[in-house]
């Protein structure tokens, strides 16, 4: 029987239930949604002993306060700098057992923009097309297809065993910096940009705009102009970088659409998507061209590192 596990007390962030991607439906125009930073989510789930892709609460922003309405075991993954349980500082690299009415404050004041709250056991989100990931654009999945707000109750069947797992913070949290370089693979319309424009694209850095969200990260900086304005609608994937006529590139993220009509200058390497997701508003992004082979090698090595978090 599901019970109320936690209650949201306060947040200023975009808080949603996320999980593995909604795969197999992109061909019908359905976005994949899911964790923006899978690495962060996996760590939180690993610490509490859940499947790595189990639903967890994604906090896109700086702060979440919640109250335990039953005994439960929680952990935080992703970009977090401070965990307070009833005003007592808690270690970030391990799971914590909560008792009734414990109040937990999770904050991030340093670097990175997304953290994950994992709860041991099963917690309930609406499953739509095979995934409980919230799709805010279409209003389905997770918690009634919407953002979690003050007063919302999260239901589940918590398990109470505390794992003895922990990880070294340095190896996971220090990767979040204000300025990042991400690898990209040349896109199908890269030829629609002049050599000079491509040199600028790879030579300059771009700032993450405030109107970035789970659909797309918008960049500003040097204007990138293509030789053609629009193309006919083509397939786009998570990480596809489109260049609209404004010249400000848009990188499609978890809730991004499945087709787009702007030239696709490049696609972010899979291994760097999580790092990109963690850039803060105003942080700077630099692109480095790589071959598909290099990108796949990076992904392979990243998966090996992640697989260490399996038992």
């Amino acid at each position: 029987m599901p019970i109320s596990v936690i209650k949201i007390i306060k947040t200023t962030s975009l808080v949603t239930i996320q999980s593995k991607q909604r795969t197999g439906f992109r061909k019908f125009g359905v976005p994949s949604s899911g964790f923006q930073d899978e690495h962060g989510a996996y760590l939180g789930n690993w610490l509490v002993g859940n499947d790595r892709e189990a639903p967890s609460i994604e906090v896109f922003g700086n702060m979440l306060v919640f109250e335990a309405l039953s005994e439960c075991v929680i952990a935080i993954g992703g970009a977090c700098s401070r965990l307070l349980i009833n005003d007592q500082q808690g270690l970030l690299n391990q799971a914590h057992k909560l008792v009734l009415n414990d109040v937990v404050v999770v904050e991030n004041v340093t670097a990175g923009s997304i953290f994950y709250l994992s709860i041991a056991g099963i917690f309930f989100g609406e499953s739509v097309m095979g995934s409980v990931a919230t799709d805010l654009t279409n209003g389905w999945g997770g918690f009634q297809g919407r953002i979690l707000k003050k007063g919302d109750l999260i239901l589940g069947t918590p398990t109470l065993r505390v794992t003895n797992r922990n990880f070294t913070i340095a190896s996971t949290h220090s990767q979040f910096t204000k300025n990042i370089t991400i690898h990209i693979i040349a896109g199908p319309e890269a030829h629609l940009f002049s050599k000079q424009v491509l040199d600028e694209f790879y030579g300059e850095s771009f700032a993450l705009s405030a109107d970035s969200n789970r659909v797309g990260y918008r960049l500003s900086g040097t204007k990138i102009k293509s030789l053609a304005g629009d193309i006919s609608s083509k397939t786009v994937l998570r990480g596809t970088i489109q260049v609209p006529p404004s010249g400000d590139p848009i990188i499609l993220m978890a809730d991004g659409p499945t087709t787009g009509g702007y030239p696709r200058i490049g696609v972010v390497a899979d291994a760097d998507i999580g790092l990109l997701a963690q850039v803060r508003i105003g942080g700077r992004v630099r692109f480095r061209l790589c071959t598909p082979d290099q990108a796949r090698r990076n992904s392979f090595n990243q998966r090996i590192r992640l697989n260490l978090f399996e038992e």
Partner: protein
Amino acid sequence: MQKVIHWSYLGERAIEIASLSDEPNFYVGLSDFLKRKLILEIEDIYITDHSITVQFKFALSLPVDDLIVLVEGYDHQDDVISNQPVISIPICYDSEFMMDAQHLQKQLNLDFDSLIELHLAGSYRVAMFGFMPGFPYLSGLNDLLSVPRLATPRKRVPKGAVAISNNMCGIYPNTSPGGWNIIGRSPFKLFDECDDPPVRLKLGQAVQFCRISKSEYDAYLGD
């Protein structure tokens, strides 16, 4: 005759192959063919206007050359797709629903009745889905109705709006922002996230429009 195959990476796991044929159903057939051959290898296959994108599951090396050989070996016959029944979609051209009637008449130099007649008479096919869940891009729009997107997109296009842009006709499965020229409204249910599959139209399927009155439209929605 052997065609030169144009392909490009779309990220490290996907390959997009474009301009293989002018026949829209070629891509639907090719997609079915590749799905059968690569069922364990691929995450999915996506079709857009004159292109097909094959997305592989995690792989250290992509068999690009082998994929191209497969594509070259594909012999398109329209049988499977032609056997799908023609689906009839009701459209109401009530003035209240023809939100862009005036500027379409002017821009296309057609009177009101010819506009509707040309739109109704088309024999359409589902060329792709995209833009939003369940939005069908229907090829087969009469060239006389070819019109660019609106200069300023609408913030809110109503659910069921039937709209045209360039050489395509589309129907909005839900309320959404949008920039296509609205020519009518359909009560046909295109998408339901609780159905499996969530779309009622199939890729490649032939679509015929039938005209309904405002009262028939209301009755249709009331059912």
